[in-house]
């Protein structure tokens, strides 16, 4: 293994056995692509819950900003599948971030929008394509940055930041919105998978087998 690659996948902390039992392993939303019908209810639910938290509007129907969800329904080969952040234990996005804007809280890989400089390093590092850099909106309006202007008319450009699934951390009422909204119950929140014994793990990932 090359040094650089070793760096990228370095464990975030060195824990002893005692630490392991108390550690919170990552959670993430797992999708059964085989049963997804591509209806996009998850995309809108995701946007709705995040725009609510951002103070944009009461819900998706009354907002005036573009709909930018943090989960995307994509067609992979013959199947549709919702793609979102896997909240990797050794998150490559966090390693790639030059300003430490990405951190892990209770098993959730979070982006600090304020600290993010929109450099797209995390976008490149993510093996799942789950991150994108999007304009930042506050209270229904795009946040501009005065220091950077469009050359021709000196109009301020929007401030951008990395955006990805945060398991609905802002609302923190248990279930992520996409899981709740899916009419086919294709999405599930897999919790504590890594710390569990194998039988439990199997149940988490393949409950129907």
């Amino acid at each position, binding site marked *: 293994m090359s040094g650089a690659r070793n760096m990228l996948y370095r464990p975030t902390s060195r824990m002893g056995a005692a630490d392991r039992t108390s550690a919170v392993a990552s959670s993430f939303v797992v999708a059964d692509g085989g049963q997804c019908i591509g209806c996009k209810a998850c995309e809108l639910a995701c946007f709705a819950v995040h725009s609510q938290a951002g103070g944009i509007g009461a819900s998706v129907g009354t907002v005036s900003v573009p709909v930018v969800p943090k989960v995307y329904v994509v067609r992979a080969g013959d199947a549709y599948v919702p793609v979102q952040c896997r909240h990797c234990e050794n998150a490559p996005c966090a390693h790639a971030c030059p300003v430490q804007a990405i951190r892990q809280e209770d098993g959730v890989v979070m982006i600090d929008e304020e600290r993010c400089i929109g450099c797209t390093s995390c976008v490149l590092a993510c093996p799942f394509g789950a991150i994108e850099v999007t304009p930042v909106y506050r209270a229904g309006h795009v946040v501009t940055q005065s220091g950077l202007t469009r050359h021709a008319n000196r109009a301020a450009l929007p401030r951008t930041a990395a955006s990805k699934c945060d398991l609905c951390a802002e609302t923190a009422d248990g279930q992520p919105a996409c899981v709740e909204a899916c*009419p086919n119950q294709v999405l599930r929140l897999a919790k504590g998978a890594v710390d569990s014994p194998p039988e439990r793990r199997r149940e988490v990932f393949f409950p129907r087998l």
Partner: protein
Amino acid sequence: MADKVLTVCPYCGSGCQLHLLVDKGQVIGAEPADGRTNEGTLCLKGHYGWDFLNDPQILTARLRKPMIRKNGVMEEVEWEEAIQYTAERLSAIKEKYGPDSIMGTGSARGPGNEANYVMQKFMRAVIGTNNIDHCARVCHGPSVAGLTYSLGDGAMSNSIPEIEHSDLLFVFGYNAPETHPIVARRIVAAKQRGAKIIVCDPRMTETGRISDMWLPLKGGSNMALVNAFGHVLVHEGLYDKRYVEANTEGFAEYVDSIKKYTPEYAEGITGVKAADIRAAMREYAKAPTATILYGMGVCQFSQAVDVVKGLASLALLTGNLGKPNVGIGPVRGQNNVQGSCDMGALPNVYPGYQDVTDTAVRKKFEKAWGVEQLPRKKGYSLTEVPHLILKENKLKAYYIFGEDPVQSDPNAAELREALDQLEFVVVQDIFMNKTALHADVILPSTAWGEHDGVYSSADRGFQRIRKAVEPQGDVKPDWAIISEVATAMGYPMSYANTEEIWDEMRSLCPLFAGASYQKMEDQGGVQWPCPTEDHPGTPYLYKGNQFSTPSGKGRLFACEWRPPQEQPDAKFPLVLSTVREVGHYSVRTMTGNCRALRQLSDEPGFIQISPQDATDLNILDGEIVAISSRRGRIMARAQVSDRVQQGATYMTYHWWVGACNELTADFLDPVSKTPELKYCAIRLERIADQAQAERDVHESYQRIRRQMNVHEAVLADKVTR
């Protein structure tokens, strides 16, 4: 804190119950309720399809004030003037040309059953004609005609929850994930329970993907395939002999009709391998319970009624009727298309499917409505209207209620010409639309969420809809508007509320007699037939194999396959079929005015083409292309898809710039008069200057929106760019 109002979704026919969250007189959200068909789930339209109530003018503007065309220009007037003017013009035309010179429509959308009841009563008792029809004519008209012939009732024989418990689902020309995501959920659940799924569709669909067998037939070859299915059942002895003997009639003629349709012969027409045809029917016949589900892929052909009867025959041959978890399901597209049929917004039946030519029935309605003589002969069909105006000069006035035929019906140019030739056009609607541009009077009504009533779900389920917010502007409920016009024409109609209308309707319809508001309240809904107060309703039809046909038996039927009417040629080498997409609905005035849904897909819409055709025509995915047929020319974005067969193309009819009904042909099924929207010949052309094409699309979109009374300020807003 928001109030919660329990109601039913206004989009597809799944009949999902939901709570509207209301705060300060505005809807601010929707939550799924535990309805019979949706069980606490909703698709994206249910979750986010209510924004149009706020009149955001994303696509078009709400109608807020009555309007009359004066010197060629629509002018806002007071209600009194609009009602008086409408009544006078209709009376004058009735006087001059007779009652049959006037045509009216029902509305299969938001107005609900009561408004449809009042409308058909208005046409029959006040105008004096059976010229009333609605958009079921362009969708499930063949189901009503075909299933009534075969089984006695034109509706789904089973209920939506039963789909999940069937051992085999036979899906024919029906793309549930796009048209009814909540029914698709039942199909996925059935699969999880171990059900076999067989899909007949020219395109690979989401259901096709999870199916055990996908039969990709050539577009327009349905009858040949269905006949071959019958051939296998009969000649391999797979049919249920005892059932056929006891419960059906016409077996000898049936066997005779299908004789030549061996799987090998059908393979030549349909392109489906003979072995697959055999394998599919062996599975279908073997399954302990099997359900047929079908949609527009069956109905929108000029041989649709025959195919519906053919499919019903397959269910009859195998005994898959009259018990739970089996049957034949024409899944209704619009939320209340079943209800508009139930309420008699059809030219041949009164409410409750009672024949207009039956003297005893007519006497009953004459007495109840206080009319000396109701019209004796059947009325005109909706799809005959352009022909009746342009060729036969028979219609002079058209009362269009909650429909936008210029957008939804085939051959739009001809329809516009027909509307302009009429002496008098009334449009009663919630949004400015393409049809309203041709109106003499516009009557603005309340929308879903702004009034009470009852919808019928696709599986015959009456459910209550409830008013959640006060309507803005000078608008009235549809039933109230129609009542006022009737009163002004000298036939007093005064109802205090929708329940009064409903109770009058129930008293005249044995099928619905026991379905009171109270029972709907108590049970959450009532599936008809519900003949008495103590009857709980009927989940599946034909219990004990008692069919509603005159003889009480199911009728077997097969006939010769006929190719579609317009075939591709050198000038128009591709075939166009109209389809749906999940985020938009029908003529799009409602979903197009919901920010979220609008952003998922927008003008000019897509045309799906195969990779091979794209290569041959030098077209890239996402490019704007020009599409023309013998009837018109439009632009849309190419969507290259390997799910599409070479030579076939698909478009949705939601778009204004990419309006595929400028292209479609108006060939009709001879019985149901349903147009052949699934098959016409077109040509695709590459546009070299893509930047100019994008500008053209944008400009024509803005031009149409200006016509739709969208405020200049809104047009210029950043959201609309």
